[in-house]
């Protein structure tokens, strides 16, 4: 397996070097003890987890709503929206932050429009350089990662089940709660853990926001490693983050494997249905 050897060399070996590098700073400012006890690290760790968890929750709510409408309330142009959502997946994340500066910045379009109506000069919308700005940008960028698996699991759901439930008098909300959502849980967990992983690792959005008060672990690795050129210190933070991400990655793979086996079983269910 030559490809496996190459990938082990260029991906796994550097990560191991990061862990090794982290112990070279013993006795200096960059040792494990002094980095982990520093206020900057504690703040960044807490902020990273809080932003990732909130953004994931937002993505799940927004993604479920959009996926349910796309799958079950068909309208002309729904395919176009689906394509748009797919395209966002391939775009750079910092684009969202850049757009938000023009839209919601203190001198942005929304504030100018509000000022034009009220005549008040002070900016009415001013969340961009707070954690809320980062969370809003991350929700925008990562929601497609929830929509995709949800759409896939909705497409497995026989339409007849919905129609039967509705014809027996169930309200749309009840159909959603007791027919649609039970099928969607595995896809939601898979999409949610993927988004949680990606938001923990997100760098471009936070870097472009550039606010002093909003530093996450990846940005801290960057400033420590490149701006102040303290490789051992950066390696300590990177080791912590790699451990965190790998743990979550393990959970994601487990959830995803279960999703795949369940889908296999669901397939046989559907196959026997018409003969009943």
């Amino acid at each position: 397996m030559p490809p496996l050897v190459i990938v082990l060399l260029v991906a796994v070996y550097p990560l191991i070097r990061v862990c090794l590098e982290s112990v070279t700073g013993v006795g200096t400012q960059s040792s494990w003890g002094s980095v982990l006890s520093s206020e900057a690290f504690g703040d960044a760790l807490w902020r990273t987890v809080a932003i990732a968890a909130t953004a994931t929750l937002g993505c799940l709510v927004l993604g479920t709503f959009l996926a349910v409408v796309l799958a079950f309330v068909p309208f002309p142009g729904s395919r176009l929206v689906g394509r748009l959502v797919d395209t966002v997946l391939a775009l750079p994340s910092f684009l969202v932050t850049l757009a938000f500066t023009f839209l919601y910045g203190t001198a942005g379009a929304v504030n100018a429009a509000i000022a034009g109506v009220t005549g008040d000069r002070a900016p009415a919308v001013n969340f961009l350089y707070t954690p809320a700005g980062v969370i809003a940008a991350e929700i925008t960028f990562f929601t497609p990662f929830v929509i995709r698996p949800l759409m896939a699991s909705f497409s497995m759901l026989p339409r007849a089940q919905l129609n039967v439930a509705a014809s027996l008098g169930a309200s749309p909300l009840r159909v959603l709660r007791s027919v649609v959502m039970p099928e969607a849980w595995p896809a939601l967990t898979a999409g949610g853990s993927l988004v949680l992983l990606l938001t923990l690792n997100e760098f471009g959005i936070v870097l472009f926001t550039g606010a002093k008060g909003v530093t996450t672990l990846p940005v801290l690795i960057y400033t420590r490693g490149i701006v102040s050129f303290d490789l051992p210190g950066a390696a300590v933070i990177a080791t912590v983050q790699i451990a965190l991400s790998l743990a979550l990655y393990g959970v994601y793979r487990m959830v995803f494997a279960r999703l795949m086996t369940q889908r296999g079983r669901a397939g046989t269910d559907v196959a026997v249905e018409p003969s009943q």
Partner: protein
Amino acid sequence: MLLWNRRSRAVLLGVFGIVVVVVFVAPLATVVLAGLAGAWTGALPSHLGVDRLGGALSGENLASLSVSLQTAVVAGGLALVLGTWAALASREAPPWLSRVVDAVFHLPIAVPSVALGLGLVIAFNSAPLLLGGTRWIVILAHAVLVLAFAFSAVSAALDRLDPAYRQAAESLGAGPFRVLTRVTLPLLLPALGAAAGLAVALSMGELGATVMVYPATWKTLPVTIFALTDRGQAFQAAASTTILLLVTLVALTALGRIRSAAAVR
């Protein structure tokens, strides 16, 4: 089928439309408009024109675009070859080994790209693997990051491939190499095209690993865009992002359109 009442359906679709426009359409449209705008002090941009796009296509910005394109093509190509090879080989491998391959190939996108960049800087900064300070470390970083997408796209396509074609060719006496080049790869061509488009698109927009490894002589477009916003030149940054967006979309659609000869017949 979920809503039977015409009014509730209209209300829901209205809400849906507003959400899609605010969340997805507005940011994309804003960047493009800001790239075209001369100034944006009111609610709407003014002095629309293509002057800034000209700026984005000259001097340092053009150089960055060319660097980004070269990086994306070389890194995407490397990732595609390696990913296809691994996907084909892991088919023949015992199950435990293919599980290992799957986990290892997805590893680079599971860890933060900044940490991977840091690792590359540390690991390839001394002989015999001296790549630090050259363009190759940027290309290597991009190749590693897009490898996961190339690998999973080709694997998924292989799963859907009907083995009957391969078996028919084998039963007619074709050797493994002939089966690969005349049957399997042509059938995989659409998936390879789509994977290549995605690889180029992701590489064009990569920032996290690049800022850790790039030398001053090999600045990719996202790095230049970040430098522009850092200096407060947000409009020029938007113009460069618009160009980036255009190139990305062209790569995605052009490479995604490749159809295999078998499908045409």
